[in-house]
C-alpha cells in the first residue's frame, strides 16, 4: 500500500484535470462527484499508507519513493521524490481528511454558484499542491507545492471576481506572501550553493556536520526560511493579507486559510528544524514572532464585526502559538496544535459558513443574534469548536494542545517565563473573543429579519460539522499530560522525526500551570459574559472616546495596513507615476507614429472603387511593358 503513496497527490490533480477540461460537460452532480471523490480516495490512500507506516519498527518509520528525475541540467539533478515520515503523515491525514469534509460541505454551500465546477477544480488543485508540498523529499519540489498552494489561494480568494474588492484582496494576499516566498527562494539558493543538493534529509545531516552553531550562513539561512514561513503563515509582520483573504467563499477560508495552507510555514520550520537549531538566535526570534503575533491578533479579534474576520485573526493568533512552540524547540507540540487546530478551526469556519448561509450572506455579527433557537445544531457544534479554541479544560482538544505548548514554553531556559506569560495572556484573549462571538451571534434576540428567519442547513453541511466536532474533542485525548494519565500517542509517533524534544516541566508544575490556564479560560469567559451578555456592560465602557479609538485601532489590525500603504504602496505608486513619461518610451512611441503615418498614406490608395483598381493595373502593365521594350 505504501507503494501507492504517489496516488495521494495524483488523485486530486487528476480530479483538477478532469474538472478543468470537462467540468462544464459533467453537470453539477458529476462535478461534485469528481471533486469530492478524488479527495476522498486520496484520504483513503493517506490513511492506508499511515496504517502501513506504523507497522514498521518505531525508529525507521520512513518511506521514500523516487518517482522520476524532474530535471538534470549541467550537474543540477532534482529528483521527483516523495518522503513519508510521521511528520508528513500527520499533515497528509489532516489535509485529505479535513479537506474531504470541506469538499463535501462545499457541495451544498456552493450549490447555487454559476462556476460550480471551476470551484472544485481549484480546490482539487489546491489539495494536490498541498500534498506535494508536505510529501516532497527535496526543497525544490516543496517550493513547487508552496507556489502551487499560493496560486490556488489567489484564485480562490478572488473566486467571486466580479466584486473588485475580492480581486484586490486576492492580489494583496498574493503579493504579501510573495515577499516571504522571495526570501525562501534565496534560502534555497544559499543551501544549494553550499551543499549542492536540495534533498532535505541530506541537507539536515550535512548542515549539522559542516556548519558551526551560530555561524553567519546558518543564521542567514534560518532567518530567510523564517521569512518564508512568516509570509505563508500570516505572522508578524506579514500578517495583513489573511483578514482580507476572507473575501473568498467560506469553505476556502476553512480549508486554505485555517486548516492547511497557512500552516505550511509551521511545517517548513518543523521540516528544516535542524537548520534552525544551528541558529539559536533565529529560533528565539521564531518564538518571539509567535508570541507577539498571538497577542496582537488576539486583541484585533476582539474588535472585529465580521464573523469571518474574527476567525481569521483567531487563526493568526493560533498559528502564533505554533510558532511559539517551534521557537522553544517543542516541534511535536507545535504539530499537535496544528492537528487539533485544523479540526476545530475548520469546524468554526464551516459553522460560520452555515450561519452566513442561513442569514442570506450576512457576515456582520451585529446583524445576527438569537440564532441558538433557529440553528440549534450549528450552535452546539460551533460551541464545541469555540470551546476547543478557547481551551475549555479536560473535554476539548484545544486544551491539551495549548497546555502542552504553554508547559514547554515555561520550561524553556531563559526567555521561557516571558513567552509563557504571553501565551497565557493570549489564552485569556482567546477565551474572551470566542465567548464574545458566540454570545453576539447565538444569544440574545435576533437583530434583523434575516436572522429571525434563518433556515437550518441540509445534511451535506451537518455531516461535516458533526464529524469535525467529534474530531475537535477526540483528537485531544491522543496527548495528555502525566497528571491526567499521561497519553503520549502523538509525541511518540513523531519521535522518529524530532529526536530531541526538550523536557517539559515537572508533573506538579505542569498541573499548576494547567490549573492557572483553566482559571484564565474561565475568567475570560466570565469577563466576556459580563461585557457582552445580558448585562451589556460594554456599551457603557465604550462610551468614552479613548476606548472607542482603541477599538477602532484594533479593528483595523493595529494600523498595519495604513503603515504599509504609507511605507511601500504610496512610494511605489508615486515612482510608477513618475516613470510613466520617461524618455525610453519615446522610441516605441516614435515607431508607432511612423507606422501610423505610412498606414494613412497607403490607405489613400484603397478607394474601394473597382474601376480605380483596374486603371492602376493598366498603368502598371503599361509601365512594365515600357520598361521591357526600352531596355
Amino acid at each position, binding site marked *: 500500500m505504501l507503494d501507492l503513496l504517489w496516488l495521494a497527490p495524483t488523485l486530486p490533480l487528476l480530479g483538477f484535470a478532469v474538472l478543468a477540461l470537462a467540468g462544464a460537460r459533467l453537470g453539477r452532480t458529476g462535478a461534485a462527484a469528481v471533486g469530492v471523490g478524488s479527495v476522498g480516495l486520496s484520504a483513503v490512500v493517506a490513511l492506508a499508507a499511515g496504517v502501513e507506516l506504523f507497522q514498521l519498527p518505531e525508529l525507521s518509520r520512513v518511506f521514500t519513493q523516487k518517482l522520476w528525475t524532474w530535471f538534470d541540467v549541467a550537474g543540477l539533478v532534482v529528483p521527483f521524490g516523495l518522503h513519508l515520515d510521521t511528520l508528513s503523515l500527520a499533515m497528509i491525514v489532516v489535509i485529505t481528511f479535513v479537506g474531504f469534509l470541506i469538499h463535501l460541505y462545499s457541495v451544498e454551500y456552493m450549490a447555487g454558484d454559476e462556476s460550480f465546477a471551476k470551484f472544485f477544480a481549484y480546490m482539487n488543485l489546491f489539495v494536490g499542491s498541498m500534498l506535494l508540498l508536505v510529501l516532497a523529499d527535496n526543497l525544490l519540489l516543496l517550493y513547487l507545492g508552496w507556489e502551487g498552494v499560493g496560486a490556488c489561494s489567489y484564485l480562490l480568494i478572488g473566486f467571486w471576481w466580479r466584486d473588485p474588492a475580492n480581486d484586490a484582496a486576492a492580489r494583496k494576499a498574493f503579493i504579501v506572501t510573495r515577499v516571504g516566498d522571495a526570501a525562501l527562494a534565496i534560502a534555497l539558493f544559499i543551501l544549494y550553493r553550499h551543499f549542492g543538493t536540495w534533498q532535505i534529509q541530506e541537507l539536515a545531516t550535512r548542515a549539522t556536520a559542516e556548519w558551526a552553531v551560530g555561524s553567519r550562513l546558518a543564521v542567514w539561512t534560518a532567518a530567510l526560511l523564517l521569512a518564508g514561513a512568516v509570509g505563508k503563515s500570516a505572522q508578524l509582520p506579514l500578517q495583513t493579507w489573511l483578514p482580507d483573504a476572507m473575501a473568498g467563499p467560506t469553505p476556502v477560508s476553512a480549508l486554505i486559510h485555517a486548516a492547511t495552507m497557512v500552516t505550511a510555514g509551521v511545517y517548513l520550520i518543523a521540516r528544516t528544524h535542524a537548520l534552525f537549531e544551528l541558529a539559536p538566535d533565529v529560533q528565539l526570534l521564531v518564538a518571539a514572532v509567535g508570541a507577539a503575533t498571538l497577542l496582537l491578533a488576539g486583541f484585533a479579534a476582539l474588535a472585529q464585526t465580521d464573523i469571518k474576520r474574527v476567525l481569521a485573526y483567531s487563526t493568526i493568533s493560533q498559528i502564533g502559538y505554533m510558532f511559539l512552540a517551534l521557537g522553544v524547540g517543542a516541534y511535536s507540540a507545535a504539530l499537535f496544535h496544528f492537528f487539533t487546530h485544523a479540526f476545530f478551526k475548520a469546524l468554526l469556519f464551516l459553522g460560520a459558513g452555515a450561519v452566513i448561509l442561513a442569514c442570506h450572506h450576512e457576515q456582520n455579527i451585529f446583524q445576527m443574534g438569537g440564532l441558538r433557537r433557529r440553528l440549534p445544531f450549528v450552535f452546539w457544534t460551533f460551541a464545541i469548536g469555540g470551546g476547543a479554541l478557547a481551551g475549555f479544560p479536560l473535554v476539548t482538544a484545544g486544551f491539551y494542545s495549548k497546555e502542552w505548548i504553554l508547559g514547554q514554553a515555561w520550561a524553556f531556559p531563559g526567555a521561557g517565563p516571558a513567552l509563557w506569560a504571553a501565551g497565557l495572556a493570549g489564552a485569556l484573549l482567546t477565551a474572551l473573543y470566542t465567548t464574545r462571538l458566540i454570545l453576539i451571534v447565538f444569544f440574545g434576540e435576533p437583530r434583523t429579519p434575516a436572522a429571525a428567519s434563518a433556515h437550518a442547513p441540509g445534511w451535506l453541511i451537518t455531516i461535516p460539522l458533526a464529524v469535525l466536532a467529534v474530531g475537535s474533542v477526540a483528537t485531544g485525548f491522543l496527548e495528555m499530560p502525566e497528571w491526567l494519565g499521561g497519553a503520549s500517542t502523538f509525541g511518540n509517533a513523531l519521535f522518529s522525526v524530532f529526536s530531541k524534544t526538550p523536557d517539559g516541566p515537572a508533573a506538579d508544575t505542569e498541573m499548576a500551570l494547567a490549573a492557572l490556564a483553566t482559571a484564565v479560560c474561565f475568567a475570560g469567559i466570565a469577563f466576556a459574559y459580563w461585557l457582552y451578555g445580558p448585562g451589556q456592560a460594554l456599551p457603557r465602557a465604550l462610551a468614552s472616546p479613548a476606548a472607542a479609538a482603541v477599538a477602532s485601532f484594533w479593528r483595523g489590525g493595529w494600523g498595519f495596513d495604513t503603515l504599509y500603504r504609507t511605507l511601500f504602496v504610496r512610494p511605489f505608486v508615486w515612482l510608477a507615476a513618475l516613470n510613466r513619461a520617461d524618455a525610453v518610451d519615446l522610441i516605441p512611441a516614435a515607431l508607432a507614429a511612423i507606422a501610423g503615418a505610412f498606414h494613412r498614406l497607403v490607405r489613400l*490608395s484603397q*478607394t*474601394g472603387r473597382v474601376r480605380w483598381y*483596374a486603371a492602376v493595373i493598366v498603368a502598371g502593365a503599361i509601365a512594365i511593358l515600357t520598361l521591357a521594350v526600352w531596355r
Partner: protein
Amino acid sequence: MTATVPVEHVIALAAALFALGVVGLLVRRNIMLMLVSLEIMLNAAGLAFVAAGARWQAPDGQVMFLVILTVAAAEVSVGLALALQIYRRFKTLDADALDEMRG
C-alpha cells in the same frame, strides 16, 4: 496560301480591340458593360494567339484560344452571378456606388 492577311494586320486589329476593351472597362460605370468590355479584351488576346499560331504554323495558338474560351466562360458565369448579387443587395449596377471597402 494565296491572299493571306498579313500577320501584322491581325495583331494590329487585336491591339485595337484590346485597347477598346480597356477604355470601355475604365470609362463604363455599368457592371454589365464592364463585363462586356472584359469579353472584348479576352477575345483580342485570343485573336492575337490565333494569328501568332498561324504565323508559326504551330497548333499552340489554337490551344491557347481554347483555354481562353474556357476561362472566359467561367469568368462570365462568376461575373454574372456577382452582378446579380450586387443588384439584389444594392439595387444598382453602378460600380462607383460600391465603395464599402474603402480604406
